[in-house]
């Protein structure tokens, strides 16, 4: 066990954990930030995606020891009031069905728009293809990302 100082969603947090514990379980079990979801545990489905210094990572594979003093953003911290352009677009397009994979989809999409504010449909597909949605809401995810990109451009 070791102590780790973390910066999560702009707040300083300290946790006592096994250094090999993936960030996913630190967030979920130790800090009660359950918006980040477990699904495959091997970086294959994207459900657990969070941002480390703004870049998307699979938190199920990322040991807590690597996250010390770095800036971590989870779905709970994507925006202050649930009004990130993607969150607004997700609501307008009515994307989710079961909704379980959607936090991970949103975090991957947010990282994409940050690096590429106007992705083509092909770029969206290529970037999002690591995120599985078992309910098959892909078409709506694609539409919502395009909508958020468009609204971002109009601002």
């Amino acid at each position, binding site marked *: *066990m070791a102590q780790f100082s973390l910066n999560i969603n702009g707040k300083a947090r300290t946790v006592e954990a*096994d250094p090999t*514990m*993936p960030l996913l*379980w630190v967030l*979920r*079990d*130790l800090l*009660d*930030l*359950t*918006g*980040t*979801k*477990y*699904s*495959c*545990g*091997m970086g*294959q*489905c994207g*459900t657990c995606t969070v941002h480390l210094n703004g870049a998307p990572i699979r938190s199920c594979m990322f040991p807590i020891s690597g996250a010390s003093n770095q800036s971590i953003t*989870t*779905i*709970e911290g*994507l925006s202050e009031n*649930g009004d990130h352009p*993607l*969150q607004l677009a*997700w*609501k*307008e397009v*009515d*994307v*989710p*069905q*079961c*909704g*379980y*994979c*959607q*936090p991970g989809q*949103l975090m991957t999409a947010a990282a994409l728009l940050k690096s590429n504010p106007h992705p083509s449909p092909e770029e*969206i*597909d*290529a970037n*999002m*293809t*690591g995120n*599985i*949605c*078992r*309910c*098959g*809401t*892909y*078409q*709506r*995810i*694609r539409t919502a990302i395009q909508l958020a990109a468009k609204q971002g451009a109009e601002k």
Partner: protein
Amino acid sequence: MSLHPPPLNRRAFLKLSTAASGGLLLGFRWLSAGTTSAASVNFKPNAFLSIAPSGQVTLLSQNPEVGQGIKTAFPMIIGEELDVAWQDVKIEPAPLDTNQYERQVTAGSGAVRSSYSILREAGASARALLVSAAAKEWGVKPATCTTANSTVTHPPTGRTLSYGQLANSASKLPLPASVELKDSSKFTLLGTRVGGTDVPKIVTGEQRYGIDTKKPGMLYGAIVNPPLHGQKLGNVDDTAALKVAGVVKVVSWPDKVAVLATNTYAAFKGQEALKITWQDPKVRESSDRLSQAFADAIANGTGETRRKVGDVERALGQADRVIEATYDVPFLPHAPMEPINMYADVKADSAHLLGPMQTPANGRRIASRILGIPEENITVEITRIGGGFGRRLKIDFVQDAVQASRLAGAPVNIVWKREEDMISGNFRPAGLYHYRAGIDAQGRLTAWHLNSASITSRGAVVPNNFPNGAIPHFQVDTHHIRSEVSTGAWRSPNHNVCALLDESFLEEVGHALGKEPLAFRLELLRQVESAPFGKVDYEPTRLRGVLEAAAEMADWGNPPAGRSHGIAAHYSHHSYVGQVAEVSVTDGNITVHKVYCAVDCGQVINLSSAENQCEGGIVDGIGAAWFGDMPIVEGASANTNFHTYRLIRMSEAPEVVTRFLQTDSPPTGLGEPALPPASAAVANAVFAATGVRIRKLPFIQNDLSA
């Protein structure tokens, strides 16, 4: 033919009272099959619509939400008849009470179908009571009053009273002898697009699922299942596991082990440190053995006959030509994104269960049996479900949580690692399907025989669907092969396979006859419409309707350059769906560009949710047929996680265009019906593109490069 439900005797289904906290309380019985005759004046309400003096409208609902949109659909139905904005109808999940709430099961696409009439009736009756109360207060005729936005208005004088203001006085009036339901042409809410009520919470991560459960004193439990199908638990050496920091206890019961810890990671680490011996079953199961057993059974006879019209053998014997084909279907895991989990808190004489169950009543029953605690002392709460697809109809994981909590003497939230569910889930059954069709000298399709083998008891077939009714000699047979692999319902059970196979073989026959695919189907359907062979329980005109609509949407027969069209239609859960897939095949690789989807599911409730179910069902159906496979090798499931079990990805998902046919029929199922025909339309388009008929699933195992 009409499938409208019989008219209700309102007094037998509604009961009016004043709520304890004031306001109107309308109790009613959910209408489900077989319950109408049981209704009487002394019936016990099993659901409630309340209007509080604050104006708050609340509906107690019993169906768990798994993403099919009922949390929006129910308020919309109530709101339409009551003239209340749907957002103002609060829906509260009813706690499990099997005496009070019928159909507390999420399956069979039936939540809306079984509730539509009674919800409208309840909404309209409450509205009539509120109007009467206002009219009485004003001394005017009820017919001169109007309602909108939770308010009664008397237009001649401009007076208004809100529903909240009227709720108390309305609760003391007699129930009207009859109320008029809105004509569907007057609907302002039903059929419109409304966003899911939980979406704001989902997009911020605030929405809780079963796996997110956290209670005081709770332990996290990792479950170990037998690694090979049919194995029994031998010896458990937990020495190393107990040394893992955070591991509190290791418990076991027949054929399961649970590692209980203070966090999930410790539980998983403990699981890896266990040394367990397992006892093998007599034979280690394999897909190869099963394939041989299926083929032998089919070769040796007809097994159990599930449908028989005319004399198939005679007609085949007399046929000018016999066309044959065998289709091979693999096992398929459910793989919902939320892994299997369940919370239980077992005490000396009571227990609490909480989790993502599709059949909570069965969960409570098994808990009662395991614990020897009466069902009435076991409380059950259902969480939002991160995908079901049939997996959570089973209660194996409820047993796990109950056993683990009982043995540990602590509340436990168990979770199966992804691998556990892939290794020992309940799969869509594998099967082999042998079709024969007889063509007479005049080129008519006179006989159709499906002889099938699977590991489910009565076969994985849909014996009564089209082209049944169009062919004078028609027979469906099944063989049951026993296996250690456990199987269960997989979204749109049996239909998910049979639509693909029936619609593929139908085209094989049509191709042999030189018939154009759509024209061939319409010709057969005209036969069913005019003079069906045997009993037919689908409406051929509605099936024709969705075929023609899908063809029109796609401009059937004129695909864009370099692409091919394939068509299919299927009837399931009382709904009709026709689809055209637009596909290209390059260097043997399939691209599904677009799917046009025409649906006759009666009255659409929430257009957004309805379209979403179709889009998702199509993606799911195509993905499962294209990539889905679970070979069993030496007793083990060969695919253990998403690195080898391939799910369809965004870049492979087609654009879907959906159209709902305008109809006066009441709403029918939509959680499943768009799935079955999708893979068939794609397979037929692949044939049009390549001349290769796919007879082995998944598609990806077929060489299309020739």
